[in-house]
């Protein structure tokens, strides 16, 4: 055995594992696939059911009531832009993908983040995993995801979830570590149950940082969903990919700007919720 021929190749072990999973757990993956597809199609259908103008009007009104006038104007402009450049359906598909991916990321990251803030050994175990998840190029997740779920929206959403979990998880842990100790002591001293302490003291105190985590999760998921256009996820990512492969500058630019518009929309809406909370606490 000489050194030059020695190579470390985890793929040798990983690929058979994926194959084995595929062969033995196909019904499970098929079930996950169909659930994700159904939910996605449902949201997409809901977003596309109304005429574009009506949906824009509803979002603008909701933003006006729930956040403020600036966010409401911005939401109108962003959605209006998507409509004007002729990418309305693709934009709605992207928003649906991001919404589902973020919801699942949060469902996984939030409880794990709380656990990590309570049990130091869990945090120590999770941290290197998160580092790997964040530094491995996202294309790499797409490979096993496609192997298991084949092309389409499902592997895209799985890869997006994997990418969206780390920021939410880290910031959840940080948010809960930052809850003032005297508040926790208060909860115990008045005889509150662990459940009351969690919902009435810890989550409200952690809320600003949690919302920052949600915000990061949304933006990173959006970036990933666009990349997932490569594996046939549809939406704006597909338009960007098409522009790239056909060397169509115009299409690429329009799709790219529509992505910016969607990003601004989602970012400002979630941030608006955060600021609304602060003004209430101060005033």
């Amino acid at each position: 055995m000489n050194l030059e021929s020695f190579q470390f190749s985890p793929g040798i072990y990983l690929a058979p594992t994926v194959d084995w999973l595929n062969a033995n757990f196909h019904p499970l993956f098929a079930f996950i696939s169909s659930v994700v597809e159904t939910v996605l199609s449902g949201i997409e259908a809901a977003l596309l059911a109304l005429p574009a103008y009506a949906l824009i009007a509803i979002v603008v009104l909701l933003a006006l009531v729930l956040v403020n006038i600036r966010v409401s104007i911005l939401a109108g402009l962003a959605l209006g832009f998507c409509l004007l450049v002729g990418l309305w359906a693709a934009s709605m598909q992207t928003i649906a993908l991001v919404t589902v991916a973020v919801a699942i990321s949060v469902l996984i990251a939030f409880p794990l983040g709380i656990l990590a803030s309570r049990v130091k050994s869990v945090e120590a175990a999770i941290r290197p995993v998160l580092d790997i998840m964040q530094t491995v190029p996202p294309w790499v997740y797409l490979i096993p995801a496609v192997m298991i779920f084949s092309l389409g929206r499902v592997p895209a959403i799985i890869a997006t979830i994997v990418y969206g979990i780390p920021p939410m998880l880290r910031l959840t842990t940080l948010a809960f570590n930052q809850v003032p100790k005297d508040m926790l002591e208060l909860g115990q001293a008045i005889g509150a149950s662990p459940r009351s302490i969690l919902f009435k003291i810890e989550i409200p105190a952690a809320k600003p940082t949690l919302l920052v985590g949600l915000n990061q999760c949304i933006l990173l998921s959006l970036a990933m969903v666009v990349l997932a256009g490569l594996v046939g996820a549809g939406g704006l990512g597909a338009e960007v990919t098409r522009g790239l492969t056909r060397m169509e500058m115009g299409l690429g630019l329009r799709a790219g700007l529509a992505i910016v518009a969607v990003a601004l929309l989602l970012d400002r809406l979630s941030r608006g919720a955060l600021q609304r909370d602060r003004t209430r606490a101060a005033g």
Partner: protein
Amino acid sequence: MANIDANEVLIDCQSVWKIFGEKAPAAMKAVAERGLSKKQILQEYNCVVGVSDASLQVRRGEIFCIMGLSGSGKSTLIRLLNRLITPSLGKVLVKGKDLSALDAAELRQMRAQHIGMVFQSVALLPHRTVLENAAFGLEVQGIAKAERNRTAAAALEKVGLGDWLSRFPSELSGGMQQRVGLARAIASDPEIILMDEPFSALDPLIRRQLQDEFRQLTKELGKSAVFITHDLDEAIRIGDRIAIMKDGVIIQVGTAEEIVLNPADQYVADFVAGISRLHLIKAHSVMVPVVDYQRQHPNSDIGSLVKTTPEADIDALIGLTMQSDRDAIAVADNGTVVGVVTARSLLAGVKGTPSHEQAAAA
């Protein structure tokens, strides 16, 4: 300890120890078996002794002050009383129940219904109004909104914040925030209120005002309180009895008068050196026995002296002496003259020497 009626003692803290550190159990065992000192524990086990063999009883209706400088273990001790910290050794009985024998639910119930607590940092929830904060203790007990708001509003009324119900904590001054903390504690109507240096962060004028209000309110409601402070003046102003702590050990327990007149050691003596005796020391502590007085002043007629009670303080006694043309005041308890206060004993009292030592000096 056995001679105190058990029904009267609300908190009974029996030889309680708290050792902090990774090897605390081993260190505790070493203390129990070999009697190591605080310093040896730190060297051998790298553990810190927070509270060392503390015993105290808090009776119903009493305000019990624990006075000590920072690091003396007073904050640890008060947390042992509601088991926010679990003792390494020893027992804490609250209303006759051993706290360490309670399960989680029973302990929560004990804290919720019988032991209120007020923190130095106030610990108000910033996203809740004053009323919601004051009602928080009742809320976690699952009391219906209308009822808990009514109770909390009444508690806020008692601390003088009746007009501030819908404000947020950030709109209140430090003193007002601490009143909300007090209202939150009394809203659950506990028998015992633990006060962890509640007024330390306030400016002196507000602090004195709150001290007086707190004492009055506690007495009015018939609550018992354990009050932690690093300020001896505050302890004397508020406390019925005072425990002085140093390095985790309670070195003396007594009324302010007892501590000032008979400090247990040099540390306590240095502490009380600067305290004004005028309102602290009472006639019964400085009076000389009637027989002694008569021996020294055979011609004096005790019956014609101005009379006062054993509870009259030195300030009042000086006032009486100035008004009277005689040089002595008779101290009468239920009509019987039990002693005589002379100008000499007044001076001794101002200096802080009790009557039995005066006699020895004379």
